[in-house]
C-alpha cells in the first residue's frame, strides 16, 4: 500500500475548496461578517466586547467549519467520486482524514490566522498573546473540522444535510469550545487548558477518521 491515493485525495480536496476562485475568502468573509454582527447586537461597550471577543471568535470558527463541511462528502457521494476513493485500496479513514485536513487548511487555518485582527476589533490589547491565541484557534478548529467531518460523512446522502451536521456535531464541539475559551481566559485553571485543548484535538484526530470511514462506506452502500 502506498500513500499515493491519500495524497491524491488531499490534492483533489484542496482544489475543490479553492474552486470558484473564492477559496479561503468565503469563510473569512463569513467569520468577519458573523463577528461584526455581535457588537451591533450587544452594543459597543469596550469592557463587554473585550470579555466576549475570544468566545465570539470560537463560535464563528465552529459555524464556519459547519458551513464549509456541508458539501465535502456529499458532493463526492453525488458525483461518484466516493465510489472511486473507496476502491483505491488505501484505508478509507486516511482518505477521509486527508480530505478533512485539506478543507481545514483552506477554511479553518486562514480563519485562525486572521483572528488577531478580529481580536483587535474586539478591543483586545495588541500583544504577542494574540499570536498564541491564533495558534490555539488553529488547534481547536482542527478538532471542529474532524468532528464536523463525522457529521458530514454521516449525512452525506441526506438532502439538506447541513442542519443535521450541526445537530450531530454540536455536543462533540463542547470540549474544544470549553478548553479553548478557558485557555484564553487568563483566569484560574487556564494554565493547563492549552494542554487539554491539544489532547482533545488529538483525540478527535485519532477517533473521527474511523467514524468517517464507517459512515462513508455506508454512504456508498
Amino acid at each position, binding site marked *: 500500500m502506498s500513500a499515493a491515493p491519500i495524497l491524491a*485525495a488531499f490534492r483533489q480536496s484542496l482544489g*475543490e475548496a479553492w474552486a470558484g476562485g473564492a477559496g479561503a475568502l468565503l469563510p473569512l468573509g463569513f467569520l468577519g461578517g458573523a463577528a461584526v454582527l455581535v457588537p451591533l447586537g450587544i452594543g459597543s461597550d469596550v469592557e463587554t466586547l473585550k470579555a466576549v471577543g475570544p468566545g465570539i471568535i470560537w463560535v464563528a470558527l465552529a459555524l464556519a467549519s459547519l458551513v464549509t463541511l456541508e458539501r465535502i462528502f456529499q*458532493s463526492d457521494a453525488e*458525483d461518484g467520486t466516493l*465510489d472511486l476513493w473507496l476502491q483505491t485500496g488505501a484505508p478509507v479513514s486516511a482518505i477521509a482524514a486527508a480530505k478533512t485536513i485539506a478543507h481545514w487548511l483552506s477554511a479553518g487555518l486562514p480563519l485562525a490566522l486572521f483572528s488577531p485582527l478580529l481580536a483587535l476589533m474586539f478591543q483586545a490589547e495588541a500583544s504577542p498573546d494574540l499570536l498564541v491565541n491564533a495558534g490555539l484557534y488553529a488547534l481547536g478548529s482542527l478538532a471542529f473540522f474532524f468532528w464536523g467531518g463525522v457529521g458530514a460523512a454521516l449525512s452525506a446522502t441526506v438532502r439538506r444535510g447541513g442542519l443535521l451536521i450541526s445537530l450531530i456535531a454540536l455536543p462533540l464541539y463542547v470540549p474544544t469550545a470549553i478548553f479553548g475559551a478557558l485557555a484564553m481566559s487568563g483566569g484560574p485553571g487556564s494554565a493547563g487548558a492549552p494542554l487539554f485543548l491539544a489532547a482533545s484535538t488529538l483525540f478527535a484526530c485519532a477517533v473521527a477518521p474511523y467514524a468517517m470511514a464507517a459512515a462513508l462506506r455506508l454512504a456508498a*452502500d
Partner: protein
Amino acid sequence: MIRGERVLFREISVAVRAGDALLLRGANGAGKTTLLRVLAGLTRPEAGRVTRAAAHHWVGHREGLKPQETPREHLKLWTQAWGSGAETDPVLTRMGLTRPADVAGRYLSAGQRRRTALARLLLEDRPVWLLDEPYTALDADGRKLVDDLIAAHRAMGGAVIAAIHGEAGFAASGDLTL
C-alpha cells in the same frame, strides 16, 4: 441481497475467466447496478462473499468527475492516486477528448463526461472491468469506441462484467438475467 424490504436476488454466483464478457440483464430495478456494486466491494451483501483474484476497474453510472475538474486533470489525478505512471495525452487522444481536454467538467456534455470516466480504464492495466451502462449518453462513435476498448481488453486476456440495458455491440460469453 436486500434493498429496503425488497429481496433483489439470492444465491447468485458470478465467475469470470480471462477473455470473458459477462452481460448483466434485467428490467429497471432488477438489481443490475446493485450486483455490480457488490462485485466491486462497494455494497455489502446481506450474506455471501466476493472473492476477487484480480484488480478491477469501476465505471459506474456516476462518472466521478468533479464540476471544476477538466478531463486532463481528472486523468492526472487518478494516474497519481493509482501510482500507474501512465501518460495521459495518448489516452485523451484515444478517447476523442483532445478538444475538451482542458474544459471544466461542468461545461462538458454528458457524452464527454462519460468518455472521461471510460478513459480511466486505459490508465492502468487491470484484468477485470466492471461497467455500469457504459453506453449511456454516448453517440454512435462513442459506442463503437467502447466496443473497441472491450474487444482489445478481452484480446489481452481481460474480463468484462457489464450491465447493459439495450443491445451490446460485442459478443458476450455469457448472460445473467436478474
